[in-house]
């Protein structure tokens, strides 16, 4: 290479510096500044920011709504993890192991909601849940279960569980494909050996398939946890805006309300710090719980 050190460094700077500057200004600086704001009482006008030490954190611990927002987030995490993983594992096994001719059709259809906008998904499901026009209530009436009909998103008890279905509906495809990738890498000889040993299809699933796609399952679960804790507020904002009576507020939607509706920017930032800490701690704990020796036969 005929290239002076100076020229090389210049090229390196050309490649890295502009990008890093933008990344620093629009990602790193806001994150650290968010931490900093959490120690201020601030309604937006820059001259009026008042340093209050840990007051926002004290408020966080005495705010009655905070524990319910945390619970709502983890409710969504748990129901989504189980709903998505059970269905997508079943579909992944069915589409790879059962030699179904029209498998590509299912693959294409199941994945499509993954690339729809949350706004479209949310509004579509608001209509499905609509008390008078929606599919859920008219379906229940059709099969004679009038007593089960209710204003799903308008009910304090049912609004939060009603948000699970759209999330599962929209999430299945991606995780199904990730698991299918894992299953198609399993050598056929394991199944042949299992069959010679007289293992039923059910046993083959538990003893061969599941252990061998554990890495994919683990990644999928972590991914659902991260995207839910960092993004569940989007569907909440579209479908219920945290209502009725705060019964669907998650941490992110409460942050949005405090900061951008009520202009408590300092307190909003404190909620943001809580989200950051909880999501990092949860991921670390889950990584520890799901660690498992890599299976090799």
């Amino acid at each position, binding site marked *: 290479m005929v290239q002076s050190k100076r020229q090389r460094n210049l*090229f390196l700077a050309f490649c890295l510096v502009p*990008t890093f500057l933008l990344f620093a200004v629009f990602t790193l600086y806001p994150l650290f500044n968010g931490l900093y704001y959490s120690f201020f009482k601030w309604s937006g006008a820059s001259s009026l920011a008042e340093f209050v030490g840990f007051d926002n954190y004290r408020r966080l611990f005495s705010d009655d709504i905070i524990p319910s927002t945390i619970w709502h987030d983890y409710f969504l995490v748990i129901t989504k993890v189980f709903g998505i993983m059970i269905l997508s594992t079943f579909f992944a096994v069915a589409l790879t192991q059962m030699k*179904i001719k029209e498998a590509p059709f299912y693959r294409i259809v199941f994945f499509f909601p993954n*690339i729809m906008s949350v706004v479209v998904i949310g509004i579509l499901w608001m*209509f499905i849940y609509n008390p008078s026009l929606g599919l859920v209530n*008219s379906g229940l009436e059709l099969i004679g279960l009038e007593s089960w009909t209710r204003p799903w998103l308008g009910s304090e008890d049912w609004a939060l569980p009603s948000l699970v279905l759209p999330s599962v509906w929209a999430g299945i495809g991606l995780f199904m494909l990730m698991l299918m990738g894992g299953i198609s890498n399993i050598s056929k000889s394991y199944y042949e050996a299992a069959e010679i040993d007289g293992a039923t299809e059910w046993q083959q699933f538990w003893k061969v398939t599941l252990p061998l796609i554990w890495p994919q399952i683990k990644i999928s679960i972590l991914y659902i946890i991260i995207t839910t804790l*960092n993004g569940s507020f989007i569907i909440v904002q579209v479908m219920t805006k945290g209502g009725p009576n705060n019964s669907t507020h998650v941490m992110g939607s409460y942050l949005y309300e405090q900061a951008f509706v009520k202009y408590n920017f300092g307190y909003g930032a404190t909620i943001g710090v809580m989200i950051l800490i909880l999501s990092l701690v949860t991921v670390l704990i889950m990584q520890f719980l799901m660690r498992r020796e890599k299976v090799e036969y």
Partner: protein
Amino acid sequence: MQKASIFSRTIVRIPLIIWSLAVLYPIFWMVLGAFKSNAEIYANPWGLPESFSFSNFVDAWSNYNIDASVFNSFIVTGLGATLTLAMAIPTSYALERMRFRGNRLLFTLYISAMMIPMVLGWIPLFFLLMQLNLLDNIFGLSIVYAVSQLPFSIFVLTSFMATIPKSLEEAAAIDGMSPYGILWKIITPLSTTGIITVTIMNMIQFWNEYFMALIFLQSEENYTLALAIDYISNETQYTNAWGTLFASLVIAIVPVIVLYAIFQRRIVKGMTEGAIKG
């Protein structure tokens, strides 16, 4: 064994068909609803339309600002995707091919940003954009979008560039080509597949994005499509103009369907690989 398989295959098809219907039915009726009058939606919400009418589209397009918001969404999507590439390609090349102190650290920094909840950063970002006069500005939003997809783009592009043989660059360097020339004339064309994957993913992301637009845009003439639809949806509670709402949803979803039809494999690959990074 064989007989059992045929039997279980039939059983297994039932949930597959049910789930296909659960996915397709609402989307299908949303499209049909866009062609129905409001009276028809009320009389028979999940039935076929009696006659196809485009009046809902006309209403959404001209009375609910969908025309302006489609334009804004195109700008944000196009500009955002272009900016992401301009930032990600040189950085990915340097991170993948050049040895310098802090290489691993910088790569880890970019990648770990994918796991951090950005919602904390949005409050300061709001004031930063205000100071830069980029608040309520679709160009400001494009920059924010571009930077937000930078980690994902760097992740995909570095792993793609790792598959390009080094000998090509070495030969070009011996022929006296500058590193800028190598990046522009050799690496970039050879990374086309990766670049297309990243760009499609980013475009879908920007076209669909809702929450950052909600925070960083305020006046109606700057609304992106997601915001305009959300606005119509909130109005629908009072006007009950479901047909107009459905028409605007169809307008939002058509470009995504077209991209999915053309690039189905790439989109699937891009998303599954993007998820596996964690």
